């Protein structure tokens, strides 16, 4: 079970958090102007890679804030956490 450093509350047990899938998928500003394929790209396509992945997490049983995390899915190492709207500290 991870120890997650919530950017608002500090280090907490994973059981307080819920995962929200891949990060940095921006909801299109003009959905109506997109083709079916373009919309499907936003709606369905996720990377789910083995290795360093950018993810959304929610401190559901804490401050209820959403934030982003850089995690290596092959060994669960968390490289960074950062607030929504901030640029990832790692490329």
């Amino acid at each position: 079970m991870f120890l997650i450093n919530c950017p608002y509350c500090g280090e907490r047990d994973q059981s307080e958090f819920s995962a929200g899938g891949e990060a940095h998928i921006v909801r299109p500003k003009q959905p109506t102007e997109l083709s079916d394929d373009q919309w499907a790209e936003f709606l369905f396509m996720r990377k789910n890679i083995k290795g360093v992945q950018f993810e959304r997490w929610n401190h559901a049983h804490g401050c209820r804030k959403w934030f982003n995390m850089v995690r290596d899915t092959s060994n669960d190492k968390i490289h960074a956490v950062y607030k929504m709207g901030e640029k990832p500290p790692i490329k």
Partner: protein
Amino acid sequence: MSKNLRITNNKFIDQTTKISFKFDGKTLYGFKGDTLASALLANNIHLVGRSFKYHRPRGIMACGSEEPNAIVQVGNDASITEPNTRATEIELYEGLEASSQNCWPSVNFDIGAVNNFFSPLIPAAFYYKTFMWPANFWKLYEYFIRKSAGLGKSPTEPDKDIYDHRYLHCDVLVVGGGISGIMAAKVAAKSNLNTVLIDDKNNLGGTTLFQKNECFKINSFYSNDWLRKEIETLNSLKNLTIKTRTSLAAYHSYNYLLARENLTDHLDLNEKRDKIRQRLWKIRAKKVIIATGAMERPLIFSNNDRPGIMLSSSIKKYIDYYGVKCGQKISLFTNNDSAYETAISLNNSGVIVNSVIDIRNKTNSLIVKQAEKLGIKIYWKSSVVNTSGYKKINSIEFMKLSDDATTVIGKKIKEKCDCLGISGGWTPRVHLFTQSGGKLKFRDVDNVFLPDKSELDQISIGSCNGDFELDDVIKNSVNLTNKFLKINNNDYENLEIISSKEIDKKNIWLLPSDKPLGKTKQFLDFQNDSTANDVKLALREGFKSIEHVKRYTTTGMATDQGKLSNMHALGIIAETAGVKMGELGTTTFRPPYTPLTFGTIVGRNVGEFFDTTRKTPIHEWHVENKAEFENVGQWKRAWYYPIGNENMHEAVQRESKAARDSAGILDASTLGKIDIQGSDASEFLNRIYTNAWSKLEIGKCRYGLMLNEDGMVYDDGVTTRLSENHYLMTTTTGGAANVLSKMEDYLQTEWPELDVYLTSVTDHYGTVSICGPNSKRILTKIIPDLDLSDKEFPHMSFKNALIDNIKCRVMRISFTGEHSYEINIQSSYAKSVWEKCFEAGKEFNITPYGTETMHLLRAEKGFIIAGQDTDGTMTPVDLQMDWIINKKKYDFIGKRSLYRSDTIREDRKQLVGLLTDDPNEILEEGAQIVSETNSQPVEMLGHVTSSYYSPNLNKSIALAVVKNGKKLKGQKMFVPMKDKNISVTITDTVFLDKENKRLNA
């Protein structure tokens, strides 16, 4: 107890305290400090069980958690009996009752043993191969297989014992209280680190605790005496917590570990009562030191599974620690030096050691020389080729090994014995290291997998790290610990250590035999009965991956998780397939390390504590009025209120009629309520719901439908505009938490520019809903000042009001199609308002109704229930609710998905009404709908989502989803049931009051 099997000068067992216990119904005696296994051996009982497949007699083989054979059922109480416990780990207590497993009628005469004679017919994966065909015979096969399979019996009644969970945080966790763990814990605790040392045994010291041998000395003390003094000094360390009888079950990422502490298992029956039996420790350690030691390997040769064949180091522990002779004339068979320690211990305790049979060429290490000096006979370069004795070994046969060690040669020597000690070298216990994600490396010289790379803050020390010699263990354990903790402890510098060093090493995974392979049984996995032959067969049949061979032959899949068998299986596979063991890798070690009871896993979360139960503020009234309840999420909701002997159907018919004819009252407190405020609240609702909200007048209510981004209906409910920037949203009972989360998600991540604040107020307000033609009269009696005229207070509007000077909100909204009001009031007043309504409604025969009637009433009106009539694949268009989609809005969640090529298909499943030709026939919810009944297979066009008998219409009604349903109105369909086909007609979804006249009645 056979006196001649006990030696008396023993300091670990209290031979003054006699303990009586029962095994297989027979009363026996042991001493305080014994395990069940040591007590049985002292009573000359080796045969304790039957093997899984062939029902061969099996005896005690080891002395710890790796025991594969001595698996017993403890206790005969139906609520606390425990199967599959290891006799080697059960501490003897007064009143203990244990019995053998997997044998019938008894361990001495077992009918299943005929399998042994049929064994050529039961190869690896016999079950998979034989019982596959014909497929529908499986039901029959399964019955018989289940009956004959399995070890032991599960308890049939709830567990009476108490179990507990606790958290533990520490700087350093040391797992394993052997010599290296003790030194590491001392080094850590002396450096002011909060240290915890755990061990699964009842005392610390590991095997060094009873290592009294001239070849192993520290500062001129025997190693056991030196270690005992070390253990004594631990008590003075303030930063050290020691937990014995605590076995580590799991090692997860981020140094999160689970350990099971046995608190009462060793106590006498009458002392156990009312105490916590086991505690699961949830440990978060900054640093972890693994010092779990090593396990001795067996040797793989023909008939190596007879009772009386034991691991050599276990024989040593039984004599040196428990003071029990495993036999009177013992032979030893080895490929390494450690069997000589056993030989010397036995010799010193007066047990006859027939001989040591060693597969190596003559070697001259210190310990071998000592054995020779004592006159112990050694056969070099020899191998045991067979054993005899059905229920207990009585002799062995051995032969010389050829120079290349692939065959046996020369004369066969037969030797009588009543016990055979085997030693195939040592396997570091790397289970916890790999559980934590660590990667292993292979050391060729002695064929061991060792810890290599880990992402976590941890190290392995001692023999689990591959140090098998006493001087290496001491030196390297301290050095590694110092480096790991970044300290410089010099307590153990300049120790004078005498340690016999192993000079020659040799290993043969599968020992050669004088018989062909098919004619012999060389057991690899003793508990699951898989042999070397099975593994070779699997390879011949084309299995290559070690994970596949494991599953196909079930090697390593028994309750011992292959602790003894895995290395040999790997070795034989590598040899047969011609690959290097390091490249082959190991199978995955998964938690728990040793089995946990369900009680330990669930702890106190049983019965009422299993899950949260939510009750409405009016709950007690429902209980007093004999309501039946149903679970809706965590809520207890009143389902129906039977009067007298009414069944559910009768109660619901009565309630439904009363609600339409006069007045009904419903507890709607469970509906989710979310308070929405902020200058952008209207804009926010515009984006969340499919319809438009900006122009909703203050004081008005509106029904809204919420979609997922994929266009599918997610939730629905009525939202009220309380003031310019203040709304109260209601959601479905089950959807409340998810709706709040979803809205928070969008606010925080997609639309952070919006000024909106969300607060869950579900628990803050109780909701009393009164409906029916007399609801207005009832409300007037309660709130006389409120103008209830249709002009002042029309349908879909809200008023602030006072009931006995308590503020409340009254909404005129309806889920039943009747004229109806919902009173929202602070929770603590909800029950008294309910009672007031009930009192005021008595003259109108006000009838409390539950969720079932609510569902019936709304179905008459064709109102959907999100989650019952929708299932995550229905768009508003599919629901024939096009009217609620505001096409002018630029965007809302899910809008774009409503015209994807898939969602605009005309033949999607659409919500329709169904009427049965026979008005008394009630359809089953979930039943399939077809258009014809002749062809096979027939196309399933849809299914029934809601179905009731309407007492107001005097006929059965149903809602259903049907492919292309919109266009099929008036068409005949069939609902095929087990014994008949029910004819139905597709109709409109609204069955009652299509003109909505009743809303204003």
